[in-house]
């Protein structure tokens, strides 16, 4: 079994895993970072989005081996102690979640979007978040939250 090493949420980790292990499996099953969810298993829902070297990636689309040597941030790595990341805070504040299953992926995608568009319009947000399905909220509050967070990031 090949050894895969990467930095996850600032910590260096190294595990021997089967070559076909997906990044999402690596995170959830080998590192117990279960905040990253699997919603569709086939790269379509966005529940599994994490950051690899600062860019959002659907972690069910990537092999763990492909992230060898990379720096990965998951939802668990955003808050500084008790202090939430502005995007997390905005999702909480603006009721941008219901069942919460899409939330981690949605937040990771939203952070990436604001990094690329520091001052996004509602239309840009709606367009950019197309790859993240939420079945509960109807997106209205998610868009509001992202807009509010952009102002605080």
């Amino acid at each position, binding site marked *: 079994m090949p050894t895969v090493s990467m930095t996850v949420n600032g910590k260096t980790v190294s595990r021997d895993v089967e070559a076909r292990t997906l990044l999402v499996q690596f995170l959830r099953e080998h590192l117990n970072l279960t905040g990253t*969810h699997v919603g569709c298993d086939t790269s379509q829902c966005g529940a599994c989005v994490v950051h690899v070297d600062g860019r959002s990636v659907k972690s069910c689309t990537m092999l763990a081996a492909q992230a060898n040597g990379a720096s990965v941030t998951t939802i668990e790595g955003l808050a500084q102690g008790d202090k939430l990341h502005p995007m997390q805070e905005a999702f909480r504040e603006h009721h941008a979640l219901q069942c919460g299953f899409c939330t981690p992926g949605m937040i990771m995608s939203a952070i990436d979007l604001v990094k690329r568009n520091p001052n996004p319009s509602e239309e840009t947000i709606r367009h950019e978040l197309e790859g993240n399905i939420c079945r509960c909220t109807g997106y209205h509050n998610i868009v509001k939250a992202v807009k509010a967070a952009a102002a605080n990031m």
Partner: protein
Amino acid sequence: MNDMPKGGVRQALRHDSAVKHVTGEAQYIDDMPELPGTLHAWLATSTKAHARILRMDLSAALALPGVAAIVTARDIPGRNDIAPILKGEPVLADGVVEHVGHPFAAVAAETMETARRAASLIEVEYEELPPILSIEQAIAEQAFVSRVLTMQRGDWREGLRQARHRRTGQLEIGGQDHFYLESQVALAIPQEDGDMLVHSSTQHPTEVQHGVATLLGLANNAVTVECRRMGGGFGGKESQATIIAGIAALLARRSSRPVKLRLVRDDDMIVTGKRHDFLIRYEVGFDDEGRIEAIDMELAARCGNVADLSPAVLTRALCHMDNCYFLPAVRARGLPCRTNTVSNTAFRGFGGPQGMLAIEAVIGTIAHALGRPADQVRAANYYGGAGRDVTPYGQRIRDNLIPRITREIAAQADYERRRREIDAFNATSPVIRKGLALFPLKFGISFNLPTLNQAGALVHVYTDGSVHLNHGGTEMGQGLFTKVAQVVAEVFRIDIDHIKVSAASTAKVPNTSATAASSGSDLNGMAAMQAAQTIKNRMISFAAEHFGVLPEQVEFAANRIIVGNRTLAFGELAHLAWANRISLSATGFYRTPEIHFDLERMQGEPFYYFTYGACVAEAAIDTLTGESRILRADILQDCGSSLNPAIDMGQIEGGFVQGMGWLTCEELVWDATGALRTHAPSTYKIPVSRDLPPVFNVRILEDAPNRAATVFRSKGIGEPPLMLAIATWLAIRDAVASVGGHRHAPPLDAPATPERILMAVEALRKGAG
């Protein structure tokens, strides 16, 4: 001192798990740390719509290293029956498979990958049998999963004969996949004495408990089912969760190890039931004003291979085919069609949406026949006035908000002006056409079956004043746990942070009903309120006696209790009560009063009250491509006196968008062999953020406390907003109708996909040309 505790009723509190959700800490079943030895399961399912299994060979699968157990119908120690209403609905096909995706065996192995491989190694020899694949075919063969339902009032035959105008019509209404983001999952853990503990993503822990006990041949008390939260439910985890939990439990029993069964998305969509698609046929008689004099409607539902919840879904469809309109003479027949497709099930609205869409199609037919605006036809038929306030099933409407809501939404949406603008726009726009519609709704709250309208709760106060709350409801994101905690905080007048809501568990509150029918907070809120009130009363009598004051002199203020001229913290009094041997634990129970319903005659007063709402939607279509967009939606929704306006707003927005998906882009396609071709979001289009109407104004109806004595006069909100989206379908239809100058009813079915829109446009062009 501030006299408002943080978190009583009416406050716009955050979801109780909000912080855990944004940090990824909230645990779903698939996130629970695995016990040593946990196995992973995979289903072996039918590739045929209808076939006899002549031979099943498990040897290659069993020989695969890592496989721990395989179960088939033969290996079930108890009874192979998980029917929620009727009897005889096996969890694993026994001898005959009845739809593509029908599970006939399941494998547990060290890894999911191994289980998957083993399942594919099970060899099956089929003898194909003739399948029934459509509603029409089922009707032709009179194939039904349960009896045909008939609801009647007055002499509809004579009414139709004497009516000045008569029209017939037909409407196909598509189904819908739930697509809860968390697919179905259960974790079964064997216990001592042969007992079973099941963590199930379920809206109905009690039904899972009964299902598992029946399958394993155990008494109910040997099975405990728990659910802390689901990643969405929408009705899809009401009866269907039992399939998953039942199979996990069978494998756990057989292997004596914990077994987790999580369906991957494609399997979830193929193996579990959906919203029923319907075929509606009607004949309606009406006068020159468009007032309905008599109607005969047939509502045929595709139920799939077994009844599951279909009889109840059809009952609700019949009880909502009136929507807001008085039907003096009516016959409505509900046909539960048996087909060799997956058994359809509960889905937000539970048949109500299909019934409402049907009558809206009728309103459109009348409007086009008379050349009158649909709004006028609606207004001519609204409930209200002497002799026009009783539903076809015999319930008197005592809380009619239709006039108020329709008036307020028309003003909020600037309806009249926009109507004129859109007509003017269409007059000069050959390719892009716009449409506008105002849709009012009335939705009955309570389970149709009176028995189900009951709930229990359990409240403990500990000696430090912290509170443990449990009730029969389940949390699927709708905020039920938050609302019920608010109720308890209100009773004790303490901050909500002092209340811990715990996972639904059959060991804590038994014999519960499903969290469904928009009744979660009505039922469980009341039960919890009762339990808390019992403890509070004990604390009051104790304090009065202990301090020698009258009970009236004991007052629960914010986080403290004033006893005569003394003040105690809530925890202090709790501790003192304990020291004096006063019980600080109580159960609560609630049953909805006044309701009754005769399922045989389809008559009674099944609903404790009605919830009302209205939506104005504006759509644009491209008449060359059939594409559509919803440009604007204005919503006014009745929530009674909302327990939590923020949560209710979320239900309204989310329900509306989900309904929009059902009626515009979500299309289930089965091929000629009966296989579902749309089993992933790649082929099954769920609304995404870009589909949200760019202008979206949502309001909760103000100053509208429930007339019925519900928990703090609130109203159920889970389902009604989904139906508000009917306005989007009507707006699209209005845009299509403009192509024919509004003179012909557009032959538009649901969902209004680009193909259907284009076909309807073409039909009108041909008809007009």
